[in-house]
C-alpha cells in the first residue's frame, strides 16, 4: 500500500463533542494570531483525530496528495476566489453549534444538530481521486460515511427524485459572500440514485483528522466521479425534491457547467479541453496525466447513466 497512515490508539482519539469544542477554540486562537500579525491558519494547533478504519474496497492505491496542498489549494468562493484565500480567511467560520435542516419529500423532516446527524454512523476512511473542472486533481484520504446511509434515515418518499444541498449563507462568517461571483447560498444537487450510490460520501475529516474549515467543515459532500464543484461544502440544508434542483455553477454559466458534471475526458469545457489533468504534488515534469471517464470510477457508476447522451447532459 502506498498510502501510509497510522491508526491512532484509542487514547489519542477525541470524542466528537470535545473536538468540536476544541475547533471553536482553535478558530478563536487562529483569529487572534492573525490579528496580532503572528501567523495564519497553517500555524494553528493540529485538528482533532478521528477514529476511522480504511475502507479498502472504495480506496484507490495512488500516492495521496500532501496535507499541506489539500488544505492550502482550495476553491471555496465563500472565502475568496484565490486558491489560497480559503486557508487565509476561513477561521471566521464557526462550525459549532451546527445544524442541518432536512426538508421536502421525506417522512422525517426538521432541524438536526450535527451531533444528531453523525451519531449513528461509523466513520470510515476512503482514498478518493478529486478532479476539478479547472483541470487539476488530487488524491484525498477522506473520513466520512455513505450519504445514502444518512438519507435513508429520513425515509424519502417515492416522490423524492432528487436531493438538493445548501451551504451556509452568512457573510459575517463567510466574507466572500459579500462579492457576487456566485449566487448565495451555494447550492448543489444529485439525482436520488446518484445520492444513494455507495461511492457518494459525506465527509467530516481528511487524513484522519477533523476537516479544516477551508475544506468544507464541518460536513461536506464528496462525489468522486463528478467535477469537484458538485462536492458541496459546509452543508446546512438537505431537501428531497420532485424536480431537478438548481445548482450554483449551472446558474452562473449554464453553457459551461451542467447538472450532471460527470468527469468526462471526451466532453470539453466550452473553453478548455478536459482530456488531461495536472496532479497536484506530482512535480513540474510529471504533473500532466490523462483524465479517465467518470474519474476512474466508470466500473461503479457508468450504469447510472445508461442510455443518456452524456455530450448533451454534461
Amino acid at each position: 500500500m502506498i498510502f501510509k497512515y497510522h491508526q491512532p490508539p484509542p487514547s489519542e482519539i477525541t470524542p466528537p463533542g470535545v473536538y468540536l469544542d476544541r475547533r471553536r477554540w482553535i478558530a478563536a486562537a487562529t483569529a487572534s494570531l492573525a490579528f496580532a500579525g503572528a501567523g495564519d491558519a497553517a500555524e494553528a494547533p493540529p485538528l482533532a483525530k478521528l477514529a476511522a478504519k480504511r475502507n479498502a474496497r472504495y480506496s484507490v492505491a495512488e500516492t495521496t496528495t500532501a496535507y499541506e496542498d489539500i488544505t492550502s489549494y482550495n476553491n471555496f468562493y465563500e472565502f475568496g476566489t484565490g486558491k489560497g484565500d480559503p486557508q487565509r480567511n476561513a477561521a471566521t467560520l464557526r462550525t459549532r453549534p451546527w445544524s442541518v435542516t432536512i426538508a421536502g419529500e421525506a417522512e422525517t423532516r426538521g432541524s438536526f444538530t450535527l451531533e444528531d446527524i453523525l451519531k449513528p454512523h461509523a466513520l470510515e476512511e476512503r482514498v478518493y481521486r478529486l478532479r476539478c473542472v479547472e483541470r487539476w486533481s488530487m488524491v484525498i484520504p477522506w473520513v466520512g460515511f455513505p450519504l445514502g446511509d444518512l438519507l435513508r434515515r429520513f425515509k424519502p418518499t417515492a416522490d423524492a427524485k432528487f436531493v438538493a444541498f445548501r451551504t451556509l449563507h452568512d457573510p459575517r462568517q463567510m466574507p466572500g459572500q459579500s462579492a457576487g461571483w456566485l449566487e448565495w447560498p451555494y447550492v448543489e444537487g444529485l439525482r436520488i440514485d446518484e445520492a444513494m450510490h455507495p461511492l457518494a460520501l459525506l465527509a467530516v475529516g481528511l487524513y484522519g483528522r477533523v476537516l479544516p474549515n477551508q475544506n468544507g467543515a464541518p460536513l461536506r459532500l464528496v462525489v468522486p466521479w463528478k467535477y469537484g464543484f458538485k462536492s458541496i461544502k459546509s452543508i446546512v440544508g438537505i431537501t428531497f425534491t420532485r424536480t431537478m434542483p438548481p445548482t450554483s455553477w449551472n446558474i452562473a454559466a449554464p453553457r459551461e457547467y451542467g447538472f450532471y458534471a460527470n468527469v468526462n475526458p471526451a466532453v470539453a469545457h466550452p473553453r478548455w479541453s478536459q482530456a488531461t489533468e495536472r496532479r497536484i504534488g506530482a512535480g513540474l515534469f510529471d504533473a500532466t496525466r490523462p483524465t479517465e471517464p467518470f474519474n476512474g470510477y466508470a466500473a461503479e457508476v457508468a450504469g447510472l447513466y445508461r442510455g443518456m447522451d452524456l455530450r448533451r447532459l454534461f
Partner: protein
Amino acid sequence: MRVEQRYRYVWKPLVFIAALLPALSMLAGVFGIAGQRLGADPVEELLLTCGKTALNLLLLTLAVTPLARIAHRPQLLRLRRMLGLFAFAYAALHFAVYLALDRAFDASMVVEDITRRPYITIGFTALLLLLPLAATSTQRMMRRLGRRWQHLHRLVYLIAILGVWHYYWQVKRDVTEPLVYAGILAVLLGWRVWQRRGARVRAAATSTYGSATAPGRT
C-alpha cells in the same frame, strides 16, 4: 554623465535586471532556492507568472511613448525596445511551459487547443504576431524597412488587445484582474487616439515629437 551614457551604463542595465527578476524568481522556485516555492500547482504557477509578466511588459512598452511625451523626456524611448523584447521572451516562455509541461509535447492536443479553444487561438495568434516585431527590432531592420517599419510595429496594439483578451477568457469567474489589465490598456490606446485627433485638428502641426515618437532611437 551625458544622457547617452546615463542610459547606456545606468538605466538600461537597471531595466534589464528588473525585467529578469520574474525569471529569476521562477528559477528559484523550480529549484527551491531561497525559500521560493511554486506552490501546489507549479505548472499553473509558471504559466501565470510568464503570461502576466509578458502582459505587464507589453503594457509598460506601450506606456513609454505617453510617459516620454507627458514628462518631456524623449530619452525614455531608448528603453522601449528592451521592454518589448522582454515581453516577447516571456510570452515565448509562457508558450514553452504550456507545450512542454502542461501538454507534454502532445502535438495533437496542442493543435486541437489552438484550433478549437478560442482563448488559446487568440493567445497563439498574439505570439505569432510578436515574432515579426522581435525579428525586425534591430537597427539594421529599422533602416531597411524605413516607414514600413512603423506600420509593421503598429501590430503591437492588436497584440496587446489579444493578450488581455486571452487572459480574460481563460479566467473561470473572478475577472477582476483581467479587467484591470483591460482598463490600463484602454487608457494607453485611448491616449493615442486622443493624440491623433488633436494632431488632425492642428492639421499642419509637424511637431518635433513626430520624430521623437519614432521608435527605437537608441
